[in-house]
């Protein structure tokens, strides 16, 4: 069963609708799964979130959450979703407990009634129960926000860039929490600009410029690759990068940590590249096949979509 269904949804801004935030996108999220919306800033992620959480009207198409239409049945949706906006939006002048209590009451429930669901997260916050939310650290704020979004036991959880600006350890912890929530049967719709988080999701959609470029499982997305990806390194990395770009059989080359990620045209062999680099005077040349990451796939798709972008 589908928990979220989006069909041809469009959203346009500006006086003449000249700014396209969402360009007729469609996607479906099955119940009890983690769905990741992955794309850079300005891709249209937040617009989609705001439409699904009934804060924004779509200009075209239709969408539903748990079978409720986002336009007609918005009141029903508000009862069953939890939303954590990208910007911290709890009351900074209320304490941890007061915030939680307040949001529980808004949903006509109590902290105690759904304590089981938030126990994992809330137990870390309890020592700071009386601290004002504004005085919490970034990671703690984010945990509190998640608690407040969960306190009414939502069926669908919307998390808009929950890990932006959070340190690496807290990010790992956060994803572990999401996994546990998923086991409770909650559908999780999450967006992130970090490609490395994509592998944590059951399915991901790559979004760019208001268009969805691909929807697949993280593994399936990498399978979409037809030709192998080569990692290239040599003594002088920058000169190597410039020289690799000059080689006629190279279709793409991106700097990427210790190795340059290089793709060759159909039928070209890596040996040719190696001897080419030798003639250019490079030493310690190493060329090997590497497994692509989501980021490689994203750049790849982005380049096919728009050749001028890079």
């Amino acid at each position: 069963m589908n928990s979220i269904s989006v069909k041809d949804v469009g959203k346009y801004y500006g006086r003449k609708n000249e700014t396209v935030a969402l360009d007729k996108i469609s996607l479906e999220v099955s119940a009890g799964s983690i769905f990741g919306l992955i794309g850079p800033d300005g891709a249209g992620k937040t617009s989609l979130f705001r439409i699904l959480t009934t804060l924004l009207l779509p200009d075209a198409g239709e969408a539903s959450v748990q079978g409720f239409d986002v336009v007609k049945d918005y009141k029903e949706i508000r009862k069953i979703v939890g939303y954590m906006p990208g910007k911290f939006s709890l009351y900074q002048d209320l304490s941890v407990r007061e915030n939680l209590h307040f949001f529980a009451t808004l949903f006509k429930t109590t902290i105690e009634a759904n304590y089981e669901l938030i126990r994992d997260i809330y137990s870390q916050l309890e020592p700071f129960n009386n601290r004002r939310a504004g005085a919490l650290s970034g990671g703690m704020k984010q945990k509190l926000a998640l608690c407040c979004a969960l306190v009414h036991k939502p069926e669908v959880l919307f998390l808009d860039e929950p890990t932006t600006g959070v340190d690496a350890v807290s990010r790992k912890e956060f994803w572990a929490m999401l996994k546990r929530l998923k086991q409770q049967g909650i559908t999780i719709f999450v967006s992130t600009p970090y490609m490395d988080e994509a592998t944590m999701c059951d399915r991901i959609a790559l979004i760019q410029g208001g268009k969805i470029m691909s929807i697949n499982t993280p593994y399936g997305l990498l399978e979409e690759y037809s030709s192998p990806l080569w990692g290239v390194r040599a003594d002088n990395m920058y000169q190597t990068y410039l020289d690799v770009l000059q080689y006629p059989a190279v279709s793409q080359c991106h700097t990427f940590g210790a190795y340059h990620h290089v793709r060759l045209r159909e039928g070209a062999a890596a040996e040719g590249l190696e001897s080419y680099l030798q003639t250019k005077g490079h030493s310690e040349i190493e060329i090997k096949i590497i497994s692509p990451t989501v980021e490689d796939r994203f750049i790849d798709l982005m380049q096919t979509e728009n050749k001028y972008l890079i």
Partner: protein
Amino acid sequence: MNILFALLRKEFKQIIRNKAILRVIFILPAVQLLILPFAADYEIKNINVGIIDHDHSGYSQEIVQKVEYSNYFKLTGYSNSYSEALTWIEDKSVDLVIEIPYNFESNLVKENAADVLVSVNAVDGTKGSIGAAYIGNIIQEVNNEIRGEWTVFPRFNPQARIQITHSKWYNRTSDYQVFMVPGVLAMLLTIVGAFLASLNIVKEGEVGTIEQINVSPIRKHEFILGKLIPFWIFGLIILAIGLLISYVVHGIVPGNNIWVLFVFAAVYLLAVLGFGLLVSNFTETQQQAMIISFFFMLIFVLLSGLFTPVESMPRWAQILAAINPVTYLVDVMRMVLLKEAQLADILPHIYTISLEGVVLNTLAVVSYQDVRYVV
């Protein structure tokens, strides 16, 4: 009901924790009531007078002495030339100049008429016109005394003389404070109602907390009531504090029917809170809300009859004053505090303000839907 209660509790907690707002609510009224009525005083004193006495006669001395001993004037200079005295007016050391010409006394005796020149600096219009009126009175008085000396009492008075005396009602000593304090109280009530509530609502949007509220099943009227009720209560508290201060400091004793004032204030606050809500709907930041409220506040106060009587305004301004809610509050304040008006006396005011309250709140609720709730 439960949700409204939670909202109210949250709102009170936030207000009480916000030191700045708390100061505005409790210290601002005290300071304004302590300072403003003394400073905003229309009784003109210390008018600087320059005298040019060319005559040096008994009568001219009499005028000079009367001016000197009146409470309103300060003799700051004597001169023999009018042009020198004019330079005093120009450098503002003197507000008006009296010139008594040669042969003032002999003209008065021989020809039964004599001229005195009074030159007034009209840059400060109020001071000038009031000063000129005082001088006119003094000269008139001297004139009467001289005539009294001359008159050989006839058996009957050949000319009927009408003398005007008056007694002042409601404010027997014409104390300006008694007149100003109710007005300042009215201003305070409006600030709390219109300013603070709109700032508070806009803050939710500015900080982003409105997002979480909007995604919850909270109803629109619950949210609005949760915002308005706290400031309605604070408004009434301020009124009570203000009345206490005006009793202790200014000696304004509220009569038995002080509750009438609270009845009116309760209705009035609903109207201005509606105005604040309206402002908040059309602003996105507290800064914008502040500037817009300030703009309206200035117009409201100047057009309210607080400082200048509405009756002497031009026709168009009178129409504006008639739709200005502050006008009615100032009026009711003075009616109740000075005249001990009964509920029946202010009923027309209550009706008008109720109507304005309904209009403002309806506009606010309708526009709230358009702006905030996109669905």
